[in-house]
């Protein structure tokens, strides 16, 4: 099977000649359709830089990133915007919902900027809202919702465009444990039942334990990766802790 995301030897430097920081060095990674990949690492390890490069928010210094057949490191200007709004779905730690718009309008915006008709928009929102159990909050404003609800609304917004891949940056970072679990259950449902590909950056072991594969990054390189396989989530959790200990204890 061809990978849906193919990262080849990417490097990312910050700063200038006299003061160079290597954020990513010679990193390669393949993600296949239907995978739920968690990327873990300490702060400063380069995990967010990696996600930013994949999401085209940031540019790599060298190397290539393919999404499907497109080399996204070669895209420019409006192509980039088009790619971002049509092929990718984003979920951010701080939700990034527009405070002036209702949940429904926030979600609709992702489609209306693609020129989708309002009837189609409505049909798709109703269907996905049922899936992620946010029908009740569709007409509320962000300030009237709980953190978990906001993040589920953001997830629907990310999914509504049928993206090739969902990119999530610390999605549970601003949630309490109960909301976190509900969100992660939703992710699991999306991944297992709807075959959505998810790439999630997190430093929370519980979140990572929901994934089918966990990639550990240290100093801009892949340090280790483990697959869940058939093992239970609790057991997988223990395995992650073990790697973390190894990672920190070195």
């Amino acid at each position, binding site marked *: 099977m061809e990978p849906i995301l193919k990262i080849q030897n990417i490097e990312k430097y910050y700063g200038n000649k006299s003061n160079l920081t290597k954020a990513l060095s010679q990193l390669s990674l393949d993600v296949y359709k239907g995978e739920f990949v968690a990327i873990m690492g300490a702060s400063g390890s380069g995990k967010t830089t990696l996600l930013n490069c994949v999401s085209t928010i940031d540019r790599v210094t060298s190397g290539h990133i393919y999404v499907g057949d497109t080399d996204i490191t070669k895209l420019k200007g409006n192509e980039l915007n088009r790619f971002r709004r049509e092929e990718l779905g*984003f979920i951010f730690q701080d939700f990034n919902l*527009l*405070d002036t718009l209702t949940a429904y309008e926030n979600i609709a915006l992702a489609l209306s900027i693609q020129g989708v008709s*309002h009837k189609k928009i409505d049909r798709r929102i109703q269907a996905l809202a049922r899936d992620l159990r946010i029908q009740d909050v569709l007409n509320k404003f962000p*300030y009237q919702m709980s953190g978990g609800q906001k993040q589920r609304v953001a997830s629907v917004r990310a999914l509504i465009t049928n993206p090739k891949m969902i990119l999530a940056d610390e999605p549970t970072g601003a949630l309490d444990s109960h909301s976190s679990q509900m969100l992660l259950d939703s992710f699991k449902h999306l991944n297992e039942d709807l075959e959505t590909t998810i790439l999630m950056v997190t430093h929370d072991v519980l979140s990572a334990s929901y994934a089918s594969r966990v990639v550990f990054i240290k100093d801009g390189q892949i340090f280790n990766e483990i697959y869940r396989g058939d093992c239970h989530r609790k057991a997988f959790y223990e395995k992650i802790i073990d790697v973390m200990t190894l990672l920190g204890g070195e």
Partner: protein
Amino acid sequence: MFIKLSLRNIQRSFKDYTIYFFTLVLGIAMFYMFNSIESQTVMMNISASTKEIIRLMISILSGVSVFVSFILAFLIIYASRFLMKRRNKEFAIYMTLGMGKRQISSIILCETLFIGFISLIVGLMAGIALSQVMSVFVAGMFEADMTKFEFVFSHSAMMKTILYFTIIYFIVMIFNVFFIGKQELIDLLTSHRRNQTIKERSLWLSIFTFIVASIILGYAYYLVTAGISFLNTADKILAPISLGIIATFMIFYSVSGFVLKVFMLKKSFYFKNLNTFVMRQFSSQMNTTVFSMSIICLMLFMTICILSSGISIKNATSAELKEMTPVDVCLYKNWDLSGKKANGKEYTSKEIEYSHLDIRETLEKVGFSIDQNFKEVLMYNNYATNDLTIKDTLGSTYQQIHKQYPYLRFDDAEKIVRLSDYNKVAKLYGLPTYTLNNQQYMIIADFEGMSSIRNVALEANVPISLLGKTYYPKYNVCREGYMIIASNHMNTGIIIVPDDAVNESIRQQSVMIANYNANDKDEKRKIEEKINQINHQTNIEGVSKLTLYESSIGLGAMVTFIAIYLGIIFLISGATILALKQLGESVDNKERYHMLRKIGVDEHMLNKALFIQIGLFFIAPLILALIHSFFGIKFCGYILTTFGDEKLMTSIFLTAIFIIFIYGGYMMITYLNSKRMIKD
């Protein structure tokens, strides 16, 4: 240390200050320009009567300038308060570093001084440069010949500008220091965390308010146009004005409540591109700025009315003058002064003797040659008697009219002219001539306010009696016309009767109409000076085309100047407030636009959304102001009939240019500034 810090602050936030700085410079430049008119006109070749008008204008302008300085002071205080609020976080950092409020105040003092100093210099330079252009304009307005171009600099205007603005800056400093003193660290630190709740007003309440407001507004419009005859005393104008103000507030309040719902109804529009976002932004902005929007709408309304009426007065006077002055001079002299008094004193025997001479004889007697100086000479007499007053002419309709216009001078004797005399004059003026049988009379008038009153009586077929005989009106309305040249339509009514209806016993004035025997303006002026010299020994009075031109063109120009001055200041004030409100939003907008960028909205679409949002914000008050103005200008046209009728198109066009330049300029600066703000 503080100076260095404040300089750095200004340098860094210079772009945030653009609007503030722009407003200061514009305000100062305007202030200088209009106060330096005196020195702009000094070197012009203008007549004494124009000089008189300019002197009057300068004294009015200096009064207006005090008013303007109040407006500018409020505006500058408002703008600086606004900028201060934007810097809460910076002040919080100073405070956490242990800086005292006094020290922060001194930083602010330095900044205010520095900005004030620079804006004064730049503003004065701009003012001096612009006043060079303006002096050409001034000369054109007063129809003066610019003999040579000279560099104009007014020392007194400069000192006045510096003085006024120093005072304004001083007040601003006091306000700012006071503002700092009130701040608490915890509020400053958390000020950016606004928990903004979106207020949604009840839809039905909004619609209800809107309907009520429309009715009130409609009534106010009715009062100043169709129902204008009820506004017969000055205090009654307060009713439509206050109704208009109240309705304006209600309209903005209610529209902000349902504008979004209206757009939501059209789903295919609402869910297209960024429309959802833009409409939400616009409606929440309107919600929070109902008060400012109403104020700005009213300011724009005043600007439009003042500018277009001001300019049209000038245009109308020029046009009307041309029409109303077919001859060079009209002279008149009272007949038979024996037994009459002037200022409580009897006339001298010499004056009485002179009063039995007609104008030709009088002029010849003091050595003024009519044949040499005049051509196309025409003479006639006015008659009047206390047995025929306005009250008598109104006859049976008097009671009704007295009730409506209690202050009319009903006991004044009517002016009576013989038909053949009138026809002679009318022929010379190019007006229609008439015939009457020996039982008929007619009235010639062109002052609309008065002819409408007279028409009531003519309609009722009211007869008049003169020297024992009775006459009936030939026409049921006044016929338009005049006999004495004037700067506008001000003939309140002349009774025209058959030639044998009057005799010497009621002769009141002799009149002479003539053209000067001259080829150009200078020669005409020389003849006119001759008449002025002999005037004091002859008791002859008169009007001449030249003086009418000079005084009314001067008057028109003066009104226009003051109108432009006030109009620009109002426009600047309104636009500045809007621009600042919008820029204040940009801080919050920055985050929103950043989010939009993250979900893949491209720059082109973002800029378009921003442009529409700002455009709507600026245009909303303009729309209502335009509707107001439609009726306002009509009303101005009505009350200014003494100055002249419509001919509005040119002035409306000029007003539009003014508004597009200044208001549109502010809008563009706001857009560019906001665009920059959401980018970084």
